[in-house]
């Protein structure tokens, strides 16, 4: 349903659109089955960053806030709800990780 407005036209851009982040994008990561972390973590990462760097530089330090985290344990990855096989040398863009995507894993 379009927004009803006084002027009859109502069209403003998203305040979080990808172009506002240059060559980067926002990517969220959720540790499924672990209630310790309330919400998925949201990172700003270059689209050209490899999965290996993304995991080591951003995901691992965050997940280590939980002393029970073992960096070799994440498994069962999903990207925006679908099965996902991360490959350390490929970039986020290559792997199909988009702006504001959600990656889930289990341990």
């Amino acid at each position, binding site marked *: 349903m*379009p927004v009803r407005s*006084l002027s009859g036209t*109502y069209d403003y*851009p998203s305040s979080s659109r990808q172009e506002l982040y240059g060559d980067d994008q926002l990517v969220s990561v959720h540790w499924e089955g672990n209630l*310790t972390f*309330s*919400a998925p973590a*949201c990172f*700003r990462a270059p689209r050209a960053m490899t999965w290996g760097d993304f995991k080591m530089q951003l995901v691992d330090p965050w997940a280590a806030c*939980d002393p029970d985290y073992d960096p070799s344990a994440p498994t069962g990855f999903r990207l925006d709800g679908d099965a996902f096989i991360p490959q350390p040398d490929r970039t986020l863009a290559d792997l199909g990780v988009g702006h504001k995507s959600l990656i889930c894993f289990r341990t």
Partner: protein
Amino acid sequence: MAKLSMRERYSLLTRDLDWTPTYVDPKEVYPYTRYEGIKIHDWDAWEDPFRLTVDSYCKYQAEKDKKLYAVIESFAQGQGHLSLTDARYLNSLKLFIQGVTPLEYAAHRHFGFLARHLDGPGPRFAALCQSMDELRHTQTEVHTLGQYNKYYDGLHNWPQMFDRVWYLSVPRSFIDDAMTAGPFEFLTSVSFAFEYLLTNLLFVPFMSGASFNGDLATMTFGFSAQSDESRHMTLGLGSLKFMLEQDEDNVPIIQGWLDKWFWRAYRVLGLVASMMDYMLPQPVMSWKEGFELYFEDQMLGGLFPDLEFYGIRPPLHVEAAIAEKDVVSHQIYWLLYQYCFGTAFTATVPDTAHLDWLSEQYPDTFDRHYRPLWDKARGIQQDGGRFFNLALPQLCQVCQIPVAFTEPGDPTRLSHRSSVHEGERYNLCSDGCQWIFEREPEKYRQAWLPVHQIYQGNCGGAALPDVIAWSGVRPGDGGEYLGSPDHVNWERWHAAGTAASGL
């Protein structure tokens, strides 16, 4: 001169001052009351049940102010802040002045707008009275809670915090959403959904919390605002029925607004839920109990059967709110606990007696899902650490709370929704927020989400301390309660009192 009756006075001093424009089209005088699709045939059908006039309004409010300021004065003279149950109680007041007082001020502004822009003199005058009430509430809250600002952190900078701090974007986005809607939608959102449907779940917990925790000043403020709030409730229901009675075509529009604004207001109250269950050293009642009494019994059981006559049914997603009553306060307070490095209130692991109380109040969920989390946090603290979640959270595009809720009926599985609109993905926390987003994506895609803005570099810098300073939060305002300035001062003042009295 014979004295006029109240009814005559009201008529002479309000409606009789109105006139019908003749050389300007009424549509130009009142440009805002047609585009939403609401049809009003007879503005005079709106009856103000209180028949207030400005002079009687001022006289009545001045009497209440006099009593309140006498109590505040004696509170200040008598070191009333030392009579609290515990300094942790202040967190409830911090949340109130940071998150509720700015809503009162925003309501003052927008009812002032309605006092100009509604076509009928009756509703215009009712809006004027409410606008004055809301300003008076803002002032009296500042003067009451300001007493504590002399001694405790986190109360010093609430207008800036309301504009900038991440969790305060939850109430702020709510009121921004309402104020950018048309006047009839605003009435449905603020006058009805907030001031009528859910007001008891907002106001009563704070004021009863004050009473149970030795806060005479805030309790007195509550009494001083209570009669105004009853008037707002009556006007909320009155404005809803007025719109429904004017034209049958209004019914589906209002039903849509009720569906939206119930969920919007309910999500804001999640912060109150966590306050009720965790921030009061001496709890009043659990969120679950309050929700059952004030919402399920009074509203679903009392109000909605009455509204059926107009063709109105209970809001969509009400079942999800009921299903969440066993989990929602725990999820939000656990969230605040782990992100409180960036809040202007402190948080801590509840003591054993408090955990036992929560176990009693939530027999189906607390021991199974949440007590283990608190045990884990306490273990980390006993080892000299403190569990903080040191990454920014994914926020819901509509309610702006981190995506931290679980699927209805399964407290172990995150409830996450996403919608793609014109090629861009938006993340949402629940079916309710997703429904609201998909109804008006052009509106919600503009949301000022703190996490996204921080990452765009619009919030003072890239490092967390820079962002926190930019938000107006100072060191000591937030973080762990144990060892905080509030905790240390409280211990010191009470130890000094004990020594001085020879105990």
